[in-house]
């Protein structure tokens, strides 16, 4: 363990010594890698903020059926049988809400008792809510639309409203965005690996004599490669930290713009920085990309020195 620790301490020290010799080049490389990382990190931050919102919304389709005002109560209640027949083999819960109950709910929920009292008569119709099983694809979504059309033809039905379809569309959109982000991250991750690969290649060339002498005095490949691995990982780590810092700073102007938009929907939605665990994960990923680039480069270029 002491031997292992000593070897790694030596490698880290050697990496830092070499970085200190050309700080300008190192900082420039950090900047380049950070720019490549910043975009996917911003995407991750946006998705991380939007995801809880979309997940909290129901994606189970609901069909609200509003009956005509003059529909007798018996006919309204009897409509449940017709609805059940229309739904057929689909799993659905059918909930009848009498107009009186709907009126009471409205008063309780929205604190509009005074306003509603001025209306005199209850303006709300009897209604049904059909809660269907979640649909997972566009075909199933189409089925729900067809079902709504059939219900619209039933006697006494005034309006049919398919709720939560927009939520499903949002979820689908988020899935597309997630996939796009993944592709972007993969592309820019490759760019990061390539930049670090080239940085380490140049460093191997610069330290050519040191590598050759080390080989001649009995250094193992691991001993020779290790400082380059640390350099790559440090480069990735610093660039990752810089990219995350830039994204956090970018949230301020974004939040200012979002606040105005959200106000239109009576929302206080704001983009928050990523949680600590996610930050740690992204930093580890950045360091990992640096390590991969360094590993590929060192193996290839030190082998050529042989």
């Amino acid at each position: 363990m002491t031997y292992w620790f000593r070897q790694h301490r030596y490698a880290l020290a050697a990496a830092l010594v070499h970085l200190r010799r050309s700080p300008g080049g190192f900082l420039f490389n950090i900047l380049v890698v950070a720019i490549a990382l910043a975009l996917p990190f911003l995407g991750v931050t946006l998705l991380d903020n939007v995801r809880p919102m979309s997940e909290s919304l129901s994606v189970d389709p609901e069909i609200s059926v509003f009956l005509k005002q003059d529909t007798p109560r018996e006919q309204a209640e009897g409509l449940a049988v017709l609805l059940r027949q229309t739904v057929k083999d689909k799993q659905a819960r059918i909930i009848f809400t009498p107009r009186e109950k709907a009126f009471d709910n409205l008063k309780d929920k929205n604190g509009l008792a005074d306003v509603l009292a001025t209306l005199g008569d209850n303006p709300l119709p009897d209604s049904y809510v059909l809660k269907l099983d979640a649909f997972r694809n566009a075909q199933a979504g189409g089925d729900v639309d067809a079902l709504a059309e059939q219900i619209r033809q039933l006697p006494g039905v005034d309006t049919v409203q398919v709720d939560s379809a927009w939520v499903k569309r949002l979820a689908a959109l988020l899935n597309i965005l997630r996939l796009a982000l993944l592709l972007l991250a993969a592309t820019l991750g490759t760019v990061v690996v390539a930049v670090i690969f080239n940085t380490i290649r140049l460093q191997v060339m610069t330290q050519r004599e040191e590598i050759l002498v080390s080989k001649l005095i009995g250094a193992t490949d691991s001993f020779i490669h290790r400082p380059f691995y640390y350099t790559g990982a440090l480069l990735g780590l610093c660039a990752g930290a810089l990219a995350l810092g830039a994204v956090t700073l970018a949230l301020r102007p974004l939040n200012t713009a979002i606040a105005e938009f959200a106000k239109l929907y009576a929302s206080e939605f704001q983009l928050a920085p990523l949680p600590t665990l996610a930050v740690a994960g992204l930093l580890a990923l950045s360091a990992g990309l640096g390590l991969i680039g360094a590993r590929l480069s060192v193996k290839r270029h030190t082998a050529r020195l042989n």
Partner: protein
Amino acid sequence: MIEFRNVSKHYSSDVTALRDVSFTVNKGELVFLAGPSGAGKSTLMKMIAAMERPSAGQVIVNGQDISRIKPVAVPFLRRNLGLIFQQQRLLTDRTVLANVMLPLLVTGAAHSQAEQRARAALDKVGLGDRAGAQPLALSGGEQQRVSIARAIVNRPQVILADEPTANLDRASANKVLDALKAFNSVGVTCLISSHDEVMLDAAARVIHLNQGQVEVQS
């Protein structure tokens, strides 16, 4: 300790560096390799350090057959060899002390222990007071003695010196030779390639190479 058995080395069909070379260097011997440029001295030295593989025959070093040694075992073989080159190959971006410490750090020695032994090695070659200097601030002879210190700091069983005095004046060459003889006197096997007549005249054993073949052993 070092044994060549019918060793040949062909770089291509028409370039042959060694041809059926056989000899033995016993433990504790001081042996010189002599011969003109292109005689195969450097190739022979490189084979002992596993920098080259023989095309035919066997090279046995410390009981290990170099022609069959696995790449991962090469560093451990070299830790028992002290290599000295005509061009000293000191790292100019670090001090003399750091250069001499390197073979110990490579083996995982503690920094304090490596420093202590490196200073002792520098003392042995008479450069204890130049530990903090940069290699380029030293004369050619001093640089060569630093490379000797680097070669012996790991207490190797064999020292291989390839033309160690080639670029030195007589006084510096004598100091280098004295240093090598001092290590040989405590049991370190030394194989030195040279075409320095003065050195060869003083040698107990000389292997003469010519056109890749052993011409004379005296």
